[in-house]
């Protein structure tokens, strides 16, 4: 059967780039969830939508599962190949088809890098707002599949808020046109359903994104605090004062120290927490907001406020945030980044719980995250050379996510479930809700060939894991509504 499938692929016209030998398949054996890997039957790299249609039809006829991959930057393992399946790599479909300044939209192929859309729009003073930290590499198709966020989503929204239209190849080879160049489309909101569907419902072959006018003026501030609670209070205070910053990021002491050691960022070393705040808009409006923010920061025991005087200084401040993960590697070579999301008011409580768990497991945890929208990225350090440490780090990571669910939050804010958080899906959702997810998948993919086993756990697996989890709606702290 394998040979027949390869023969099908070889008949595709125009000729399809096909990878079958183990050595050349190696680079594709994992995405950025590098602790797990598998070699696919083969990888195909289409250049056109019609090739994607042929690939899907060939797999569908022969009942062979497919996994779609863009740039492979996902960190929940959703694009790791299946040993019995085909890997469809969309990175060659990387053309920007159109930038239309009149309608503030761009039409792009799925393999286009996120940052390339902004680069192509810059001459019209427009930009593509969602900016995941991997934006130089990560692809738009992957951004849609994961509903990617970034540091500017509190103000500018997630991918789902910035995409107008998709072309999607369904499992039967038909091309679905979802969304519209108008502000709405008839029927159910399938556009929302496709966002964050992690490659389980179809293969995205074209994306029309909304572009945003560049703000006239930007102010970037760094504020240091003697405690995490003070910093968290400042975050809530800024928003309570009616200011929606373009970005509002927090770093804890471990991250501050790592940045200091790694790139001499010049941070106050006695600070327990730092906030990076960006304001944008009309010059006069930003000036007004700046005053408000500085007043809030002073009321929250700030130790120091630094304001970027120009673009170079702004770059420098952002470098410390964006380089934080690289800096953390100087603490320990192996670490594991989580992605829970919580109501913002629970920040101090949740961070304290993390420290308790850190002590319990004897593993360090650092925090650098999107404070403005309550999206946490705790980093768990482990040593892969010690037997069992990876497994323990994953167990601890799972506990950290369960704390998020307990306070009314969610197990993933922007990284997706993939293969990484299947167990925690059993904590967040009950059997009937999971069954509904499976029913929706069956509408698009009755044979279950698109990225099977990812994103939504089977009910059987949840019940096998049931010993350590709460079942039948008996969730911890049942007083907190869960939806």
């Amino acid at each position, binding site marked *: 059967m394998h040979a027949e499938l390869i023969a099908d692929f070889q008949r595709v016209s125009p000729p399809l780039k096909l990878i079958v030998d183990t050595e050349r398949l190696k680079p594709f054996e994992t995405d950025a969830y590098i602790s797990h890997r598998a070699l696919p039957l083969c990888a195909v790299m289409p250049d056109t939508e019609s090739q994607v249609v042929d690939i899907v039809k060939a797999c569908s006829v022969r009942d062979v599962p497919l996994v779609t991959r863009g740039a492979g930057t996902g960190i929940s393992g959703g694009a790791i190949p299946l040993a019995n399946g085909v890997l469809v790599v969309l990175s060659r479909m990387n053309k920007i088809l159109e930038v239309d300044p009149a*309608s503030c939209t761009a039409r792009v192929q799925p393999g286009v890098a996120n940052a390339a859309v902004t680069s192509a729009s810059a001459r019209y*003073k*427009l930009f593509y707002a969602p900016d995941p930290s991997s934006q130089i590499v990560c692809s738009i198709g992957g951004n849609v599949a*994961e*509903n990617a966020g970034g540091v500017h*989503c509190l103000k500018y929204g997630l991918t*789902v*808020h910035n995409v107008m239209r998709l072309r999607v190849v369904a499992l039967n080879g038909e*091309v*679905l046109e979802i969304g*519209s*160049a*108008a*502000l*709405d489309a*008839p*029927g*159910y*909101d399938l556009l*929302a*359903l496709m966002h*964050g569907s992690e490659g389980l419902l179809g293969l995205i072959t074209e994306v029309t994104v909304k572009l945003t*006018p560049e703000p006239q003026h930007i102010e970037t501030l760094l504020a240091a605090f003697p405690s995490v609670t003070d910093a968290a209070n400042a975050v809530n205070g800024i*928003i*309570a004062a*009616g200011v929606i910053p373009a970005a509002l990021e927090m770093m804890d002491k471990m991250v501050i120290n790592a940045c200091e050691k790694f790139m001499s960022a010049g941070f106050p070393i006695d600070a327990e927490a730092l906030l990076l705040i960006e304001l944008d*808009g*009309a010059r*006069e*409006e930003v000036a*007004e907001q700046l005053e408000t923010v500085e007043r809030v920061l002073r009321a929250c025991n700030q130790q120091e406020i630094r304001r970027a005087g120009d673009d170079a200084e702004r770059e420098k401040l952002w470098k410390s945030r964006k380089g934080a993960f690289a800096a953390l590697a100087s603490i320990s070579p192996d670490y594991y980044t989580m992605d829970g*999301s*919580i*109501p*913002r008011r629970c920040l101090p409580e949740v961070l304290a719980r993390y420290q308790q768990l850190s002590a319990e497991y004897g593993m360090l945890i650092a925090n650098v995250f999107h404070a403005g929208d*309550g*999206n946490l990225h705790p980093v768990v350090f482990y040593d892969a050379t010690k037997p069992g440490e990876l497994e323990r780090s994953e167990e601890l990571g799972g506990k950290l996510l369960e704390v998020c669910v307990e306070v*009314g*939050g*969610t*197990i993933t*804010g922007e*990284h*997706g*479930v993939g293969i990484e*958080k299947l167990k925690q*899906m059993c904590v967040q*959702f009950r059997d*009937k*809700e999971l069954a*509904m*997810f499976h029913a*929706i998948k069956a*509408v*698009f993919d009755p044979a279950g060939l698109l990225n099977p086993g990812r*994103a*939504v756990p089977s009910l059987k697996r949840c019940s096998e894991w049931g010993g350590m989890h709460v079942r039948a709606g008996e969730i911890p702290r049942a007083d907190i*509504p*869960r*939806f």
Partner: protein
Amino acid sequence: MDTIIAATSARIRDAREAKTPLAIHGGKSKSFYGGAIIGESLDLRPYSGIIEYEPKELVLTVRAGTTLVEIERVMDAASQTLPFEPPHYAEGSTIGGTVASGLSGPRRPYTGAVRDFVLGARILDGKGDDLRFGGRVIKNVAGYDISRLMTGAMGTLGVLLDLSFKVLPKPVEELTLRYDFDEAMAIRQFNEWAGKPLPISATSWHDGVAMLRLSGAVAGVKAARLKLGGELVAHDVAKLFWHSLRDQRDAFFQTVEPLWRVSVPPTTAPLGLQMPQWIEWGGGLRWHRGVADVAALRAKIAQAGGHVTLFRYGDKAAGVFNPLQPVLTKIHRDLKAAFDPENILNRGRMDNF
């Protein structure tokens, strides 16, 4: 409230058994909209009240039967607002109906639609099962986005119970400018402005008059006003104008002639339909009033990349909503069956699949 949920769930199970359709409603302010109403009344108004609202979180959780008036009163006290400026149309309209209809007001192109602000939904599906999707946090990608799928589904996929929204601070300053523009000029100017970093929050054109609303911080609105010319409209007059447009109280909308909701890419040139017209949403929404050949109208608008809804009045027999691409029709039917196997929830309210 638990007894209401239990009773509603039991009613759905009975209806499913008996295969009798249920017509879900709140204040009936939008009963004119969508396919004909069939079945026994399922009144969600008793299921009302704000469940959680902490302004600092920018998140509101509310029961579906709560009126927009009540929500706006509470949010007003905290200087916050539902950013999609939901139309009321009549007294007593509820948040459940707002989400089910998926209709947004004048602010939509500049701040987002109702679907953009929905964070979570608790629903009863067509089997009476109590399901919770999404959450009360701003970022959440666990599971398919079923709460957004409920938006605009006309109650055909589930009875909405609890709904969570992202909310925003109310703009401190607001002012409206008036221009004498012809249609082409208005469309061109609206789109040109939309490509610039201006605090625009609404646009309207009708009968040679364009209106532009600016909202935001005092300084930002003042600065923009200087760049934009136009004639300043008195605050009270402007407020009344936008409320009236949001709720379609102007005589243009209050007629017995069919009212067509024509949704097109905002840059679309004047359509040249021989019917009176009102333009909103920066050119993206073009209301037309009059008798028309539906098929021909839909074909013409499809050419422009848009779609046509028979919004109000007129003969619904030719279809209220624009027909779907055939492959999408099957997906719609199958989704409906997944949520509501016996087709008892708001049967036929979405009439295009």
